[in-house]
């Protein structure tokens, strides 16, 4: 080895990158396609369906699914399909809004606690361990109903408690990543804490956190729809899957699709989100 030759294993080993790997995760593809369809529908529904989701037309009372009313009409003659898609706007909207702040808050708090450790970590883990079993679902019901504030009840409670599940995930990851040698090396290279957090910790925490986000979002959506069903969620007439199920309940024996369809819409969204979650989990487990 006297002369400095480029060592025989000089070049990197060929391996799939980028798009080719995504193609190999069917779950992610299926999930994102389903979500895309839903979002496109929700955005372009005014041009797709001629019907107004709120205007009543008593002459079209409880029509079964037909050519002009794909899913039939409800007890006030409103087109079910149109209302379903408009309801998607409201419910998904609240779901995303109620998740964004807890997600970011939880990731930041968890990462700081996991990386810096010390008293920050003990306080955060004490809070998260204690409140992980916090009956926030119950609190949402009480607050939403007592205040009759609809979505506000959800937002308030979720700001208080929703960040905990993300803090736990990111704290655990940050604590284990901290022991990884490339973090130690970044420290010896003299890189400051904030840079290590942003450049090295966050990119490795986000993938798993997003997977948890997917499942957690489904949980929120179900909570929103449940409140709607109990009549303490979104005030009518704004379309909401929960209220639609409740309205359809009294016609269950004759027009079963009135309650069934909104439920299926929630299942559809839930399936799409969890497929995306599973697909992302496979993708990132294979890459690292």
């Amino acid at each position, binding site marked *: 080895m006297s002369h400095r030759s480029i060592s025989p294993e000089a070049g990197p080993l060929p391996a799939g990158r980028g798009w080719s790997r995504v193609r190999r995760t069917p779950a992610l593809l299926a999930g994102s396609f389903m979500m895309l369809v839903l979002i496109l529908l929700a955005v372009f529904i005014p041009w797709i369906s001629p019907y107004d989701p709120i205007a009543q037309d008593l002459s079209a009372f409880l029509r079964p699914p037909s050519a002009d009313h794909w899913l039939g009409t409800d007890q006030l003659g409103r087109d079910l399909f149109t209302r379903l898609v408009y309801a998607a706007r409201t419910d998904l909207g609240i779901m995303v809004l109620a998740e964004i702040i807890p997600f970011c808050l939880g990731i930041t708090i968890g990462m700081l606690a996991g990386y810096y450790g010390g008293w920050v970590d003990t306080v955060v883990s004490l809070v998260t361990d204690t409140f992980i079993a916090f*009956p926030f*679902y119950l609190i949402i019901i009480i*607050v939403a*109903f007592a205040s009759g504030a609809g979505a506000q009840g959800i937002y*308030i409670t979720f700001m208080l408690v929703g960040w905990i599940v993300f803090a736990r995930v990111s704290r655990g990851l940050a604590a284990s990543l901290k022991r990884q040698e490339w973090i130690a090396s970044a420290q010896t290279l003299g890189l400051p804490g904030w840079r290590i957090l942003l450049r090295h910790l966050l990119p490795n925490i986000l993938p798993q956190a997003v997977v948890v986000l997917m*499942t957690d979002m489904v949980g929120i959506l179900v909570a929103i729809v449940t409140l709607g069903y109990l009549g303490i969620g979104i005030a009518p007439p704004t379309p909401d899957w929960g209220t639609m199920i409740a309205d359809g309940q009294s016609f269950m024996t004759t027009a079963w699709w009135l309650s069934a369809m909104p439920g299926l819409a929630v299942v559809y969204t839930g399936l799409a989100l969890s497929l995306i979650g599973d697909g992302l989990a496979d993708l990132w487990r294979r890459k690292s």
Partner: protein
Amino acid sequence: MTKTSPTARRKAGFPPSYRWLAIAALRALIVIACVTTAVFFLIRIVPGDPAKMILGEYATAESIAALRRTLGLDLPLWEQFVRFLHTLLTQGDTGLSIVSGVPVRQLIAERAPVTLLLIALACLLAAAVSLVLAVVAATNKDKLLDHLIRIFPAITLGMPVFWVGLLLILLFGVHLRWFPVGGIGEGWTGMLYSLALPAITVAFSQIPTLVRSLRAQMLEVLESDFVVTLRAARIPRRVILFKHVLRNSAMPTLMLFGVNLSYLIGGTLVVEQVFGIKGIGSLLFTSISSRDFPVIQGIALYCAFAVVVIGLLIEIAAWRLDPRTKEKR
């Protein structure tokens, strides 16, 4: 000394320092206190005047003011809180029901057994079914059965509890008439029979996540060297599976069960509403619609207590299962 009795466990380096148990109990108290205070203030801070809501829009100003005085709502917030704490600590109750004047504790005591039974049934059902499904999926890795069991959580994750309840009523109650719909049958068997469908509905909301977690954990343990050692020693598969593999994989799923507890309790309350069962759930919704704050407060306290007690039981089960985790705490 054939079996490792607790004494052996103590000498074997597991000083059962019940320190962790004391910490867990302390935590439980903190949760109860927070829930109570959170509900107390949230109800009163959030916009809308309770007295006006109780008497309805057409009530006169004087009657509203009179009601506010009787309810003590005119007092400053913190004084209300002090009086609330006083009644809580002295009588162990959150006051009298505005609607019926009955002490809240008595109201809850009447309705509690049904709800507790429903929760217990749901927990047992969820544990049993997820155990069976996870074992089947893990031992038949990548066969058709395994794929079915893996897709099942993705689909059911998005199913709202009440919607599942409605479908089950429609299917089993109305069409097949296997189960009575609504209300509670007389006598022990009657009660169990009528709680079957609701229990299935609540369990249904818990099973997907538990199966997914237990299956993943079992697959990992099945691949570990010590299972290969046992199989090389030709130890019967069922002994390996139930004595060694399951025990090593149960821990994360047990923790997950604890975390999802509040969903389970919340789900139970909603299911009572769907199936028309006169339990804590329906009491909660009636008292909410009638703005009966002391009762709401009492139920919140009671549910927090239930969540916390079950959480402690899980923590003890976890210690029994794997003493090492508690050593560090």
